[in-house]
């Protein structure tokens, strides 16, 4: 037995309440360990002194007969505040569903807006010549052509027409060259910008 193990047994050893047969082992250790014997004497003195505070100074008398009625009173009081069981059962799944819905509505659009901002940043870095090359691609016209009636709401007809003219008109190259990139980009919605980048990639590969 180590000194550490022996010392953890000392309080019980002093009070003659060994947890098990370890008392014999502790006694054997004490016979050969002066340090632990010294610790034992200190504990003996302290534990004897602690008897004076046992039981702790408790001056208040307790009305035991009143406990049970007060317990029932509290049960009744709390019962009126407890939600019906079906509400308790569905409260957590409902809260989780609301949290997921909020996440989908708020967080995911934010992340796509971020990617749209990235696209805008990429396009702003293009030189006017590169934009001109893109404009020569006939297919670019399809980009600005609304795919369906529903999507017309995304970009106003007037904006679409202006952009289409700028990008497809062979005679308007100077306009493209002088084009303010920010104005151009602001005219594009997310899908249009994404398609424009694809076009740029294709153009660079060709």
């Amino acid at each position, binding site marked *: 037995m180590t000194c550490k193990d022996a*010392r*953890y*047994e*000392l*309080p*019980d050893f002093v009070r003659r*309440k060994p*947890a098990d047969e370890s008392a014999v082992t502790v006694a054997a250790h004490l016979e050969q360990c002066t340090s632990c014997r010294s610790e034992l004497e*200190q*504990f003996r003195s*302290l*534990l004897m*002194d*602690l008897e*004076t*505070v*046992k*039981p*702790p*100074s*408790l001056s*208040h008398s*307790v009305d*035991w007969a009143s*406990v*049970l009625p*007060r*317990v029932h009173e*509290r*049960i009744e009081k*709390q019962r009126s505040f407890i939600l019906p069981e079906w509400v308790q059962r569905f409260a957590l799944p409902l809260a989780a569903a609301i949290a997921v819905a909020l996440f989908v509505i708020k967080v995911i659009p934010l992340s796509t807006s971020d990617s749209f901002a990235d696209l805008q940043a990429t396009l702003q870095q293009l030189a006017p010549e590169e934009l001109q090359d893109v404009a020569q691609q006939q297919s670019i016209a399809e980009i600005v052509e609304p795919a369906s009636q529903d999507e017309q709401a995304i970009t106003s007809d007037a904006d679409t027409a202006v952009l289409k003219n700028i990008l497809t008109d062979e005679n308007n190259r100077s306009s493209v060259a002088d084009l303010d990139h920010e104005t151009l980009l602001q005219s594009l919605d997310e899908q249009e910008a994404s398609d424009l980048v694809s076009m740029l990639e294709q153009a660079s590969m060709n």
Partner: protein
Amino acid sequence: MAPKTDLELVDDFRRGHVEGFNELVRRYQEKVYWIARRVVGSHDDADDIVQDVFVRVYRGLKDFRSESGFYTWVYRITVNLSLNAIRTKRVKDFLRLDDVEEPAYDGNDGQPDSAILQDEYKAVLERAIDRLPPKQKLVFMMRYFDEIPYEEMAKILSKSVGGLKANYFHALKKIQEYVRRELNS
């Protein structure tokens, strides 16, 4: 006729006889009170905890699993609520702006010097116990005052027997050091 066991009373309650619960309250109210009182110190807090404990028992008896023993279960609820009460009290004390008045020293009441010294020494010991960290204090109380076997304590507190012995030892060392420091100052 032999009194019903705890588990028989629990079964009575589960079958709809509230008297089973009432008997359990009467059987354990004092024990619960003293556990709480020793941990939290004040009568009012302990009295409040007793009621909370039995309200929880009432609500939990339906799902109570008998293998842990009714008293062990009640003891654990009491310990948890008592420790919570201490934490809440500490937060309240921390947030309280007005200072707590120190009790004024009322001088020698005509007691002999040895009696005064004895009282002062006892007060130092009580303060030493009171200043133990809550969980260590609880282990000390359970072992020293209630003499609960380590194995039972381990079930109540979900700790190992070895850990509890170490905790009890260190609690006593802290009391010893506090007393020594106070007497030397």
